[in-house]
């Protein structure tokens, strides 16, 4: 057991920190938000060149042999600037599922170009009634000749507008909310019968509502085994949750640092407000929360981590006088 970062991991951390510092000053971020797609090709290309899009994949899959720790290191830094490039849907979710369940042909056609920065993905699983139950899926895929036909609705699909391919979780058999009977399909982002309603999200990412009206795909569009997608999805989502937790801890660190700076400089009653014990103790609580939020590193297959960390983030955001106002003025 060793909790310190290796030299390579430290270099990765430094590089990601530099990237965020150089590219994600607040005004820069606003400019990126205002672009058509809401992210920049030059940033995505740079991530590919730095090897970040392939670092978590095995060497035989064209990756660089890292794992979830590397993903966390990068995501933590992304959290400090709220990076907008679609790393999570493309690499962690899309890439993760293709690496776990894809055929050699699918890996070559999808994963290899993704690692080079030439393909992006979106993962469509949620439906209006699903809430947080990954198996609550009613979008139907029915056999059609050699291939399949998909009909139904998917909601809040991040990066769908930019994605070359959308990975769709569909019901191929079984009843409502049954884990068995779910299958994954790789659908072209411009497939006939697929319509989108695009919108920004509260945190300035992009998402879409998708309607599938008899969207036809070939037999080779199935990712993994028919009816047996659930474990693949569950593992990918667990990894994504851990990545999000890492992003949240980075975000908390940035907010804590900004707040600490603020309470050291903002003066009221003739002294910096950080001289008041009541604010000191609140700041210590924020600091401790941020420290404690780091734990999912140990057991990354733990979905329960999510609510805990999100609460900690909320606590951290509910800051002290003024610090939050800067945030409110941000957009």
């Amino acid at each position, binding site marked *: *057991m060793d909790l310190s970062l290796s030299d390579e991991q430290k270099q990765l951390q430094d590089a990601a920190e530099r990237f965020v510092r150089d590219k994600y000053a607040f005004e820069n971020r606003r400019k990126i938000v205002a672009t058509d797609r809401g992210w920049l090709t030059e940033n995505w290309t740079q991530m590919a060149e730095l090897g970040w899009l392939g670092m978590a994949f095995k060497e035989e899959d064209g990756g660089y042999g890292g794992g979830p720790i590397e993903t966390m290191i990068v995501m933590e830094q992304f959290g400090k600037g709220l990076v907008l490039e679609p790393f999570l849907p493309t690499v962690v979710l899309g890439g993760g599922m293709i690496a776990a369940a894809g055929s050699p042909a699918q890996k070559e056609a999808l994963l290899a170009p993704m690692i080079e920065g030439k393909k992006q993905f979106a993962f469509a699983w949620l439906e209006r009634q699903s809430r947080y139950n990954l198996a609550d899926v009613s979008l139907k895929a029915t056999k059609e000749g050699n291939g399949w036909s998909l009909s139904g609705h998917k909601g809040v699909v991040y990066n769908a507008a930019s994605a070359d391919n959308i990975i769709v979780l569909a019901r191929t058999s079984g009843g409502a909310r049954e884990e068995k009977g779910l299958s994954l399909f790789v659908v072209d982002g411009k497939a006939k019968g697929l319509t989108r309603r695009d919108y920004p999200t509260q945190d300035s990412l992009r998402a879409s509502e998708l309607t599938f009206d008899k969207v036809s795909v070939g037999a080779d569009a199935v990712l993994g085994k028919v009816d047996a997608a659930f474990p693949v999805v569950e593992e990918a989502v667990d990894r994504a949750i851990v990545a999000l937790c890492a992003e949240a801890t980075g975000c908390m660190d940035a907010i804590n640092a900004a707040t*600490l700076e603020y309470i050291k400089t903002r003066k009221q009653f003739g002294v910096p407000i950080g001289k008041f014990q009541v604010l000191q103790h609140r700041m210590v609580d924020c600091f*401790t929360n941020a420290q*404690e939020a780091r734990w999912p*590193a140990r057991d990354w297959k733990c979905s329960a981590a999510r609510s805990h960390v999100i609460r900690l983030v909320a606590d951290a955001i509910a800051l002290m006088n003024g610090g939050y106002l800067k945030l409110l003025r941000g957009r």
Partner: protein
Amino acid sequence: MDLALKPEHKAFADEVRAFVHKTLLPATKAKTFAGKHYGRDDHVEWQQALGRQGWLPYTWPKKYGGPGWDVTQRFLFENVLAEEGAPRIIPFGVKMVGPVIYTFGNDEQKERFLPGIRSSEVQWCQGYSEPGAGSDLANLRTRAVRDGDHYIVNGQKTWTSFAHWADWIFCLVRTDPDTKPQEGISFLLLDMKTPGITVRPIIMMDGAHHVNDVFFDNVKVPVANRIGKEGEGWTCAKFLLANERLGIAEVPASKRGVRSLRDIARTEPQDGRTLADDPAFVAKIAEIDLQVQALEMSELRALSTMALGGAPGPEVSTLKIRGSEIQQRLAELAMEAVGEYAQPYQPGMLFQNTNETPIGPDHAPPAAPRYFNMRKTSIYGGSNEIQKNIVSKMVLGL
């Protein structure tokens, strides 16, 4: 960063577990899981067994007779002991005065005191708090006046845990009343049999006797019993407090607490099923479980930093804060789980001095006493407010 256990560490954990199985008295183990009070013998016999194995001073370096374990081994050792129901190692000898003696003492002192600590032949207690010196420890007034080769000690210590079981006490005493508070303090070792020492029990709400007042009335202590230089006892005090804060998070015990909370929930009936079928209560257990795991991770990070050299830093104060809050929360949830049967007061059940049968389930009698007793955790070892002041000043620079 590598979080997996190496094979040799797995073998180590098995070895510790086998030792506990073979050595820990079944009666002592039973008390742990029933939440009952231990007697002096429970502690001493267990610690002496660990001492014979060379494991009692498990945090010490080899040089001073410790096993020289790495951070992972210590972590595993603590966890296996807690899982198997061993009593907590009483910290005053091995975790507190021992490291002070081998860090600040002279060779003669090391030879004289360390063996008795390693073997647990000698029981120690801690003379820090006084009636007028709690959070403001440096305000202490117990006086030690030099008289030739001796100090004459007069004053009072309070909240002294296990003083009634102890052979020796280590004390902070004031040797110079005319300088700044922190600069006139010295660190003295006193034999509890010395004439002039009186121990008076403080009895807790549940009838338990853990803590005491200790009075010093012209107690004659050889100058050779002073650790470090005269007037430099505050250095020892701070060193010891930082060590104390690390262990005080009690993560392994809280992990055991979560397990026993789950066991209680599985047996408590509710609506024709068990409390463990109540999703809202299960969510509460899950939340405290997450907090314990998060705290464990933070502690491991602190240990890992220490392994790279260096004493525990001011960050350990946060471990103490969270650890104590978790202990209290566990006791609250246990009360909630037990329900109405937490009410009957059965001291005999706690102290094992009767044959009476429990009125409710076996796990019920300790729930309320433990709940009340745990109120102390956010106060002792430096109150949580004091810890926050430390973090605020030393870590955040406020």
